[in-house]
Each structure stands twice: as C-alpha cells, then as structure tokens.
C-alpha cells in the first residue's frame, strides 16, 4: 500500500534501479521507486540478447521486473516524475507528480481490446519509430505493470476505447496527482540517453532509410521484433551486406563527447553474431577504431565473432552516401590498417553504433543544494575509488549509468554497491 514515509527513494526503474530496490527491500528497507515511463524495465527490456552469454534480455529482465513489482517492501509508481527533493534535517521531502494514464490500473487486465479498436496511429517510441502504435497502448508485451495508457496528446477523443473496454477501466476524469513523502535516502538510477545519430549529419541518419542506429537493430533482433524479420527499413528487403560504424558519437570531440561509451563494441559484436544466425548468407563488416572487449568473457566473445566470419576493418568512417536507385549505401572510410588512404565500400544496410550520453535533467530537482556533475554531465562520484556510489550530497547515491557509461554486468554491480552504501548510511542515522 502507498505510504507517506519510506526509507529509500529510487529514481529510475531500469535494471540498476530494480537491482538496488530489490537488494534494499531484501534487507528489510521500505523502498519507493519512481519511473517516468508507463512501464519499468528501462533500456534493457527492449534489447534482444545480451553479451557475452547471449541470454535473451527479457529472460533476465522480466523476472526481476516482476519481483520488483510484487515485493512487499517496494512500491512502484510508474508514469511518474520526481519534481523536487528538499533536505529537512536527516530526511528528504520528496514531491512526486503522477501523470494520468486515463486507464485505471486496478481494473485494466491488459487484454488490449482498446488497442485493437483505437483508430489513431503514431510512431511507437518503444520501437524507435520503426512501426506505429495506437493512442491507447501497452508499451510492449513484457511491460510491467501490463496496463494500457492513453497518450492524450495524440488521442482524438473518439471514445472507442471506453466503449469496448470489458473491464470499464478507461477513465478520462483522471487528473495529474501530486504526492509529498519523506525518505531517508535517495538513489539516482536515472540511466543514460542514447546519442542521437542525427547529430552526425555526415552519416545520413534520418535522411537515408537504410541507415539505422543500433537500438533499432536490437529491436529488429528482439523476441518482440517489430518486423518479425531482419529487413531494410527502406523496402523490406533482406539485407546481404551489413556494416557497423563504431564510435558514432563517442570518442568524438566534434560532438562534444570525448569519452568512450564502453558498450558499443560489444553490442555490435553481439548483433553481428545474432545476424549471422538470422541471416546466414549475409556479410557483416564492423568499422572500428579499437575493439574494446575488456570484460569477463568479452575477448573470447570477440574472437568467436571473428571465427564466425565477421569482418573487422580498422577505419574511421568519414561519410555515408546513398545510391538512389538501390537504397544501398557507400561508406567512405579512412583505412587505417590495410593499404591506407580513403576507401569506399558498398553496403545495403548500415548500423550506427551510437554511444551513451548523460541523462541530464535530474540536477534541477534538488532544492537549495546542487548535485555536482562531472565534465561530461554524469553524476559526479564524490569518492570514486573507495565509495563509488556516493555523490556530493549526503544521503544521495547513484547507481548504474547515472555516473558514467556501463554495461549490464557493471550496472548490476554498481547497484549492489549503492544498496550496501545506502544500508550503511541509514543505519548511521540512528
């Protein structure tokens, strides 16, 4: 049940937030989790399989999501945002805005009858615009809570959903709700943003349909795949010759992101392996600067991809151009290892391996104090070596990619660390 006082506020319901909340809840602390999307799950739940074990992301994420949702010590508020956090003595006063879903979560059974009848079509943000969705929708089949939400901005108020809902769950009278509650500690598990590939106009993303970003490719490969096949977004053709452009938006001063995103090499290698399974006849070329296969089992995974026949070309991609007639793409790159110089290659699909950017916008919620960020806008670690979860604000901790790029195993470990530090901090208050 909903209370007005909790031990810990976890902001963000991605994998790091879930792991932190579950750890703390298992220790007996009362946790409230705030997620801005209609479902928890973050980015991981949208992925296909995850390196280096090739477990399907859903198989790891869904049970954790479900455990988070039903744990007796965790309260989850989805489609909600923290609007302000104010320190009062040893506690924090937290204000939360719950956006109206216009669907009663207690009544909705997730039958999707409303979705089947809604006439509206808008781009599906959970499929990154590869397909459409309705104005009333369940975010994805593994969503938790699995209840519908009405996107009121795009709704034409035709009323069909309300007429067909067998559970009488549609409720247009809902208003935004504000809550004020008290917590002893705050965990920022706010995750990251994907680098918007449009910021590299020379790669033609958004202009050439067959240039896609890696998140879109992961959707095409996932169990909830929007095309039910790996085909080109231009014409539905099965690609034969796919290129990956690593470091799109990472290690790149020209876009203001000089750091490495830590995950792109590995997810590209993973996708390449999955593509070889899905399209046994396709050629796959990965244009890279350095292959950063640094984690446990990663190097072996990289070698495995090489053995499977994935081509690795050390080269910086300068420009991508489209051949009008075929929709194929000419990749112009600086060949760093072969005979040198600028070379061109034709591919029928190009995947941009976009990096991570800091999720800004959490700084403004702190009242009367400033959350310190590092020069790349990630939450600054106050004691990076010995207390990695601490921020400059006492009682405020960070987990997952809030403090910098991380892969899933590292995010899980950082969530473990955050929960340990929160537990010790709360005990110290007594």
């Amino acid at each position, binding site marked *: 049940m909903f209370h007005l006082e909790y031990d810990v506020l976890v902001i963000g319901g991605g994998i790091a937030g879930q792991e932190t909340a579950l*750890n703390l809840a*298992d*220790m007996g602390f009362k946790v409230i989790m705030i997620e801005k999307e209609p479902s928890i799950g973050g980015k991981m739940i949208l992925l296909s399989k*995850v390196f*280096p*074990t090739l477990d*399907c992301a859903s*198989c*790891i994420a*869904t049970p954790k*999501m*479900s*455990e988070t949702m039903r744990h007796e010590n965790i309260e989850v508020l989805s489609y909600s945002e923290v609007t302000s956090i104010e320190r009062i003595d040893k506690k924090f006063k937290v204000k939360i805005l719950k956006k109206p879903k216009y669907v009663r979560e207690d009544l909705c059974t997730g039958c999707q009858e409303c979705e089947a009848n809604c006439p509206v079509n808008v781009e599906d943000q959970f499929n990154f615009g590869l397909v459409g969705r309705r104005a009333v929708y369940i975010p994805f*089949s*593994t969503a*938790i*809570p699995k209840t519908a939400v009405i996107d009121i901005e795009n709704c034409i108020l035709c009323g069909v959903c309300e007429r067909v809902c067998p559970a009488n769950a549609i409720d247009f009278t809902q208003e935004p709700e504000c809550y004020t509650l008290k917590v002893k500690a705050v965990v920022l598990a706010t995750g990251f943003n994907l680098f918007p590939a449009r910021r590299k106009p020379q790669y033609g993303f958004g202009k050439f349909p067959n240039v896609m970003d890696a998140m879109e490719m992961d959707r095409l490969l996932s*169990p*909830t795949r929007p095309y039910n096949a790996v085909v080109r977004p231009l014409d539905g053709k099965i690609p034969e010759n796919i290129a990956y452009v690593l470091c799109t938006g990472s290690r790149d001063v020209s876009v203001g992101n000089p*750091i*490495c*995103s*830590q995950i792109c090499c590995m997810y590209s290698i993973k996708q390449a392996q999955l593509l070889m399974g899905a399209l046994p006849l396709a050629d796959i070329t990965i244009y890279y600067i*350095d*292959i*950063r296969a*640094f984690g*446990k*089992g*990663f*190097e072996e995974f990289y*070698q495995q991809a090489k053995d499977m026949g994935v081509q690795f070309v*050390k080269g910086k991609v300068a420009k991508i151009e489209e051949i009008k007639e075929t929709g194929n793409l000419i990749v112009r790159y600086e060949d*760093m*290892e*072969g005979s*040198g110089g600028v070379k061109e290659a034709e591919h029928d699909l190009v995947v941009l391996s976009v990096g991570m950017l800091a999720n800004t916008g959490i700084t403004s919620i702190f009242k009367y104090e400033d959350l310190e960020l*590092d020069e*790349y806008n990630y939450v600054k670690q106050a004691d*990076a*070596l*010995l207390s*990695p*979860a601490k921020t400059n604000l006492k009682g405020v901790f960070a987990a997952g990619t809030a403090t*910098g*790029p*991380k892969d*899933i*195993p*590292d995010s*899980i*470990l950082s*969530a*473990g*660390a955050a*929960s*340990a*530090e929160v537990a*010790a901090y709360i*005990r110290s208050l007594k």
Partner: protein
Amino acid sequence: MKERIGVYICYCGGNISDYVNVNKVKDSVKDEDGVVLAKTTVFACSDSSQKEMISDIIENKLDGIVVASCSPKLHLHTFRSVAERAGLNPYEYVQVNIREQDSWAHSDKPEEATEKAIRLVRAGIRRLREAQPLLPNEISVTDSVAVIGGGASGMRAAIELADTGLEVYLIEKEHFLGGRIPQWGELFETNERGDILIEKLYNEIIKRNNIKIFTGTEVESFSGCVGNFNLEVKIKPRYVKSGIECNEFEKIEEGCPVEVDDEFNFGLTKRKAIYKFYKNAYPDLPAVDFENCTKCGLCEKLCPDAFDFNQKEEKLALKVGAVILTTGFSPYEPSEGEYGYKKNDKVITLQQLRRIMELSNGNLKWKGKEVKEIAFIYCVGSRQKSGENKYCSRYCCTAAIHTSLLLKKKYPYIRSYHLFRDIRTYGKQEILYRDSCKQGDIYLKFDENEPPVVEDLNNRAIVKVKDLLTEREEIEIEPDLVVLVTGMIPRKNSEIERIFKVPVGRDNFFNEIHPKLRPVETVIDGVFIAGTGQGPKNLTESILSSLSAAAKTYSLLSSGTLKLEPIVAFVDSERCKWCGDCAEVCLYDAIEKENQDGKEIAVVNEALCKGCGSCVPVCESRAIEIKGYTNKEIIGMIDGMLEEVR
C-alpha cells in the same frame, strides 16, 4: 498422486519456438494422465504469465504445475514462488528445460527437438505426479562473516559489513593488509596514492570494534553449511608483540644482518629478516621472517620487551554465517625469454616499473643508467592466441597509459612508445589516452600474429615491430627500458579453491553463478566472491563488487534465520534393518542409529543432511531416499521419456 496438473510450454519469445513446435508439444501432453490444463505462453517468466498461472491454479484447483522453459538454474525460484503465491507448496512445481538442453542444443534438428521436448515434458509431468509437498528447514544463523583476503576489496567489504552490524573476521595471509594496491603509487583516474587509500581504509577498520583483523593467517579447513560455517584458521607467529612501546624498530631493521629479496618490490631491492612491506604498512608493527633470521639477537638486545621468539603457530576455530572471498590476483609473470624477460636486463614488467618509480629519487635510473626512452609492450600474458590466458586483463591499457602520463609529468624528457593491439581505455579512461597522445606518446599497433621482437645486442635492447598503422613498416627502437604490460592471472590459491570448493571458469578465475543475475554468488550457498579473484578489474570495479558482495551477505544474514532447501534424506522405517552402511558413507554425520519400538533403524538429522544422496545406492534394503528425488519420481521420469510419441 497429483490429478490436477497445469502444464505451460514457453515460446521464450522465439528462443524455444523457433526450433520446437510448442503447440505440438502442448497438444501431445494435454491428455496425459493427471493433466487438466495445457497452455503455451510467449514468456512464461513475464509478470502477466505469472499472474495467469496463479489464477489458473486457483480457478482450476490445480494441485501442481509444470513449466517447460529455460534451465532451472535461471528460473526455478521464479516459478516456485508462483506456486507458493497461488497457495501450492513450492515443490509442487517441476521445471522442464527445453531451451538449453533442447531448442538450442538441437536447433539443427527441429523435428527431433520437438519430439524430445514432448518426452521431456512428459517426464516432468510424471515426476510432478509423484511429488510431495516439502517444508523448508528453518535454521538460525551466525551473525558473523569471514572476509578472506585483506586487500582493498576485502578491507572495504569488511567496513561495510561492520556498518550493517555484523561481526567481521578479516583474514589476511601476509603479515600486512593492503594487498597489491600499495604497490602502485598513484592510481587512475583520481591520482590518489594506493598506500594512502589503504591507510584510510585501515583507520576506518580500527574505528569499528566489530572487525577482527587476522594477519599472517590462512584458512585450514571449511565445513558446515550456509548460515553456520566452521572455519579453522592457522595464525603464523609475528614474533613481535603488539602494544609494546619500542622506538628502536628503525635501528633494529638497519642493524639486522640478513638480506633477502623484497617480494613487495618484486625483488628489485632487498629487505631484512625483520621487515615491513613499506614504511606505512598496516598493522603498524614489523614482522620477523623467522626462516631467514640468523637469530643474532640484536633485536632483542635493543628492545627486549617487544619480541617473543617463543610464539607458536596458533589455530583458531571461527563460526561464521557467510564467507566473502577477496583473494585477488597475481600479476602475470612472463616466462624466461618472453620478449627477452630475465634474459635482457632492460626488460621489466609494468609492476616493476611502478616500484622503480616509487623508489627513485631525482632522475629515473635503471641499472645506473638514466632512462630516457621507454617501450611499452601491451597484452603480455593477456589475449594470448596460444597459451592459457585468452582473456583481456581489462586494467592494463589504462594502467600503462596512466604510467606514461605520470612519467612525463615527473620527467618531461622521457619519450614513450606504446606497442599495442587495441587500446582499451573504456569509458572516461579514454581521456587519459587522449592526454597521452597529446603529450607526444607514440602508438604503434602490432598484429597478434606478428608480435614485436626484442633483440639482445651487447646489452642493448632492440625492439622491432611491424606497425599496422603505417602499412606494416618495420620500425626499430632502442629504448632504455622495455616494459612488459602484463595482465592479471588468478592468484595461485589452489588451497582456497580446494578448501572452499568454489568452481573456476575457463579463465581459471572464480566463477560467479551468472554475470548479470548473480554476479557475486557462487554455487556454494553463503560463499561470495568479489574483487579480482573473480576476474580482472581496476580498483573502482573491485570495490563495486566487494560492496555488492557485502549487500548480498547482509541480505542473507540480516533476518537471523534462514530457510534451507528441504532436499534431505529420509528413511522408510519398515524397510530399514540398520546395517550402518548409510551412516558410514555419510560425510556429514547426518545419520544415526535410533531405537524405535524395539527396532534399530537409521534416522536422518535434517539440519546436518546436505541431500547429496550418497547413502541411497549403498542401502541394500532400499530404505533410504532423497526428498524430491525419490524412486517413484525418477522411475516416472524414465517412463515418461521412453513411451512412444503419439
């Protein structure tokens, strides 16, 4: 016997259904005896499927469920909890593995994979029909933890655990805490000094009276089970008494006539028989290396009260609820002649260079000669094409680059060459690489099949490398030092492996259960792993894992009680004729003779029984069985696997 069974066949979003015809499986098993409901589901583990199962169980009054999906290692507990939430006993659930052991293993033969799935599911149904509800064994736990390994990870975990209120035993094999971190000097990316960090941790530790430090201590044996382990430790004598004022230690050390290789400085210097690893090593008390001591008596003369050469090796028994292994790594030791190592005295390892930097005053000198040019050769002992270490050691690229930045800051005239394969300065460490390029470091990329060659020419070291970035042009350098950037290998602690029976992976590091789901847990319940014993890591990453292990340990022990799996042996008192064979084979003393109504029979102590089943095959009268693995269940499974598929 169960008569109202529900069966769920999972698509696993294609992982199973791409190869196994799940609908055919469902149709083939739906009329099996005892089955009242059979369904397919896209993701059995999803919340909505779980809810559906619960309402199915309640509405259809099911007395057990079978889920055919992935390996039980992943989701056995997920579905046991589903059964429990619906009012069933968690053991009235059987998981059938049709993914790892069917759809994936036989993705080349979909038709056969489907047939196998049908037989496996049928076996699961037969097993469930015979299953009995089992109640967990609740035990009280010891609220103390042993942290094995007193490096940075172990020290950090100890502090965190102490703060949650547990009693902590921090056990270190050497006489000094700190592990490898103090050997490094300044650390990336904050440039804090390793020895200072260890000092900080040590000061935090001694502030807490619920941490007991054991130095010079090794684990001898380990027994018991999660919640109540018994550790036997052996404490080596230090021969120096604590708590005695003595201001003469420096003089004593100076006067000590013994000189042996200093292991802390990788043999670059000598130390005495009375020694500290480094000046501010903790505990702040020297130790006597008795093996090398000449017993000259100088120390006792100068400080008679501070020494006790009658100290004997001590043994101690500790009771703990859980164990965290933070036993760390060893730096890879290149073999003789590997890039000229130990043959050419200009060739050293990165670890040695760091000690030289720490020990030198004024200019950087090696063997009396000033060092102006250094060639770093990367991936020595890592990413080996042939050889044991196929893995990447993760920290070495950044460590080498950071070293070259430190060198430039101190000795602006030094020129560094980096002979690398891929530069792996991931995340924010990339900035260090940029800075190194900016300061003029030279990077040469070599092919894994054509590594650089170090030639020995009249005491000169000539390094030849074919640079991939300039069309394989052969480049020759003659540096004053060749630094081998060596990787991490698991610490040679076969004793620890043997004693704790923690499995190791392909890379010989300790193996976690699952890198994402349970990264600090091992197959031995209550034994956790953290730090570089689990795999190469830098300091921050080691601390993240040690804090994670602390969190998991606290969750395990915080409630004071623990529910143990009820998978234990039980005796059919009618059949038992007490011959004692079962008691004899049992390693855990879990079986005793008891007189029941004038008849001697075997009785199982459930708190001690581990459920291994060793007693089952030795019983002539077939009177002893394991719960959950009874004769009826196994025979049922065999029948289910063999009957023809209709």
